[in-house]
């Protein structure tokens, strides 16, 4: 049982690629999360010895409540990091390119671009980690109202660029053959 990847997806529409942000970017976000989680672990480990008054009587209850709320915050933060990662996708089908962007919890944008509106495709790999792990941006220039169409921090940007150009070629050759047959 699967959802449609985007609302206007047709039943017979062939999906060539569904791409998420590169795992290394998810890893960086989780690294920040781990920093906050380690702070809690260190607090629980060392505060008992250095500040024993914090764990006795009423103050002990208040400290326990604080750590529980902090843990709740950590669990929520990890969940939101995952949800945003999972819902941000780029889709390439036989007839269009779709960019689904989940910005935080309350903003969900879907942009579509028909393959035949593509004017130029650029892949860009920046930085040390981008080069090592082979991820970067794919920028699509369009003939439509939206001038740029960008997939941010996706794996194998050169491969995606090639796929888009191949699909464009295929589509334009198909259109040319159709016109010649009419003549």
């Amino acid at each position, binding site marked *: *049982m699967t*959802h449609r990847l985007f609302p206007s997806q047709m039943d017979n529409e062939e999906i060539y690629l*569904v791409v998420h942000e590169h795992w290394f970017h998810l890893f960086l976000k989780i690294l920040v999360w781990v920093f906050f989680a380690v702070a809690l672990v260190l607090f629980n480990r060392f505060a008992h010895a250095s500040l024993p008054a914090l764990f006795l009587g009423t103050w002990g209850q208040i400290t326990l*409540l604080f750590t529980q709320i902090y843990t709740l915050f950590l669990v929520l933060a990890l969940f939101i990091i*995952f949800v945003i990662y*999972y*819902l941000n996708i780029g889709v390439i089908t036989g007839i269009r390119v779709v960019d*689904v962007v989940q910005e935080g919890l309350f903003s969900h944008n879907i942009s579509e671009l028909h393959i035949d509106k593509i004017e130029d495709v650029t892949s860009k790999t920046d930085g040390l980690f981008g080069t090592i792990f082979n991820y970067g941006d794919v920028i699509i220039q369009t003939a439509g109202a939206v001038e740029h169409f960008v997939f941010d921090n996706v794996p194998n940007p050169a491969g995606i660029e090639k796929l888009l150009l191949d699909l464009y070629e295929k589509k334009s050759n198909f259109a040319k053959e159709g016109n010649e047959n009419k003549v």
Partner: protein
Amino acid sequence: MDFSNPANLLIVGIYFLLIGVFTLFSIFGVYILVRYGQSIPFSITVAIIYAIFFLKILYDSYSTIRTLLI
């Protein structure tokens, strides 16, 4: 719970404000995950695992605040 002490009222107010915001974000997170997720079984599995953790910690914190204010 003893609300005659203003400090208790403050603690309870802050507690419920934070829990309210966390719960709102959690519910909305689960909602968008199930609504926009690519696979419903996967989304529901993640949502259930998250809900178990969230509710367990929420229950513990509620027990703590009850003990604190009795």
